[in-house]
């Protein structure tokens, strides 16, 4: 596993699992020194793919560095990893959430889970968004709304459970400023699977992971004929753009992104190794300090 496990390394990590599917895989995280929410959820997705392909729990060796192990404990990784990995859970864990943990890893399988996420995030979001990102106090509302919509995407479309997590940290390399990273992942049927029955015929031979992502991400299509559907992703894109943030969705073999000027990620990637479900990432950068 990469030593830094985040948005930039998760694709390679998931691609690297593929040749070994069907074997019992050892996930060696002993030398990982950095996880962001994408890394933690990506590890859960990778473990789930390996487990389902082999039929037994893959082995996970936890990070040796104390701070890293403590952090992933605070993020609720050990609870989420039960049933996904075979691992030696540490005896002692640091209690309480760190101040920069906006939302610990939270399973999403029902609409009740979405209510739970919105309830949990309300108090912290207001203080973290204003103190760390210099957003207005009112930003907690649209933040909770996009979290609600992105989590509902799992419940309404994935037909399989998923997870959400969010954290604030200082992103030194690329931005040199504080960011909030939101990660939402599931191991369901993906965008192509969700839209196939309703829309694939119209696309004919062009129907693919790319066209299905474009249909949902750019045009707001859903599998429901109801014209009120499909607003969630569109409104997420709009809100993230307002905050000069980045949002991307990887599903199947493709990834689509809305890329701000500070990011050099490509807006569309195809030809990656297929994964089940969807990986949604949002990065919200701090505004300039008003002082």
């Amino acid at each position, binding site marked *: 596993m990469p030593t830094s496990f985040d948005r930039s390394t998760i694709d390679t990590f998931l691609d690297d699992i593929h040749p070994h599917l069907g074997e019992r895989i050892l996930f060696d995280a002993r030398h990982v020194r950095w996880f962001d929410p994408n890394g933690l959820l990506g590890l859960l997705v990778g473990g789930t793919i390996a487990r389902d392909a082999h039929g037994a729990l893959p082995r996970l060796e936890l990070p040796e560095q104390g701070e890293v192990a403590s952090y992933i404990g605070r993020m609720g990784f050990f609870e989420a990893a039960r049933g996904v990995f075979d691992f030696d859970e540490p005896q002692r864990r640091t209690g309480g959430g760190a101040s920069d943990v906006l939302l610990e890893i939270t399973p999403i399988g029902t609409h009740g889970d979405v209510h739970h996420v919105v309830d949990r995030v309300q108090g912290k979001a207001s203080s973290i968004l204003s103190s760390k990102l210099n957003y207005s106090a009112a930003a907690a509302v649209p933040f909770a709304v996009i979290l609600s919509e992105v989590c509902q995407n799992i419940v309404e479309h994935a037909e399989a459970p998923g997870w959400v997590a969010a954290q604030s940290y200082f992103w030194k390399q690329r931005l040199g400023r504080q960011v909030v990273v939101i990660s939402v992942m599931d191991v369901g049927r993906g965008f192509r699977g969700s839209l196939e029955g309703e829309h694939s015929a119209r696309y004919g031979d062009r129907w693919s992971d790319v066209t299905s992502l474009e249909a949902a991400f750019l045009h707001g299509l859903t599998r429901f004929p109801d014209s009120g559907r499909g607003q*969630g992703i569109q409104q997420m894109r709009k809100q993230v753009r307002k905050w000069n943030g980045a949002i991307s969705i990887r599903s199947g073999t493709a990834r689509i992104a809305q890329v701000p000027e500070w990011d050099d990620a490509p807006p569309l990637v195809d030809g990656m190794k297929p994964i089940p479900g969807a990986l949604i990432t949002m990065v919200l950068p701090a505004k300039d300090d008003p002082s």
Partner: protein
Amino acid sequence: MTDRPLDGVAIDVQAVLDGIGDPIMQQSVSLHSYLVTRPTGRAVRMAIEAQLPGPGRVALSVIDFSEVRLIDYSCADEVVAKLLQRYLEAGEPDAYFVFRGIGEAQWEQIVSVLERQGLAAVHQNESGSFELMGVRSDAEHSVWLRLEGEGAVEPEGVQALFDGDADDAVLNSILNRGLAFRAPQSGRLHALSRLVEHLL
């Protein structure tokens, strides 16, 4: 029918949320105080509909969002857009709605779902004045504002509402979209704001 044939109902959305009868939803909404997710919105809309008069009666409702702290797009679509759509299927509606207390925390979500569905609604803002939210043409807005200023207009005075591009078609559009009320017998036009005074 008299000139005030409407059955008035004042509905506090938060109270509806607190009192939803479905045990599953009741559990959900009593544990979680925010208006999020489609099932919650659907339950709130059904509870609102249950408070409206039955077939053959025309309803006038004030839907109060003052106590709602947060609503997401999915829930707004279920509570507001689908509620309006249900009563706007053909001709002049059999239910009229005035929304009130939609603050900054709910405004964008509710306007977005109205715009997506091509709907408009009458809203009483915090200052107590009434406004149109959602999709409306300039001509519709102009006629609506004039009627709002007058409160009520006799049939023979309808032409006074028209200015610029406005004409009978614009007035009919306002009526069919549930933004004003025409008494069936007298033909008198009423601004919804005046009709809901006793409900506020």
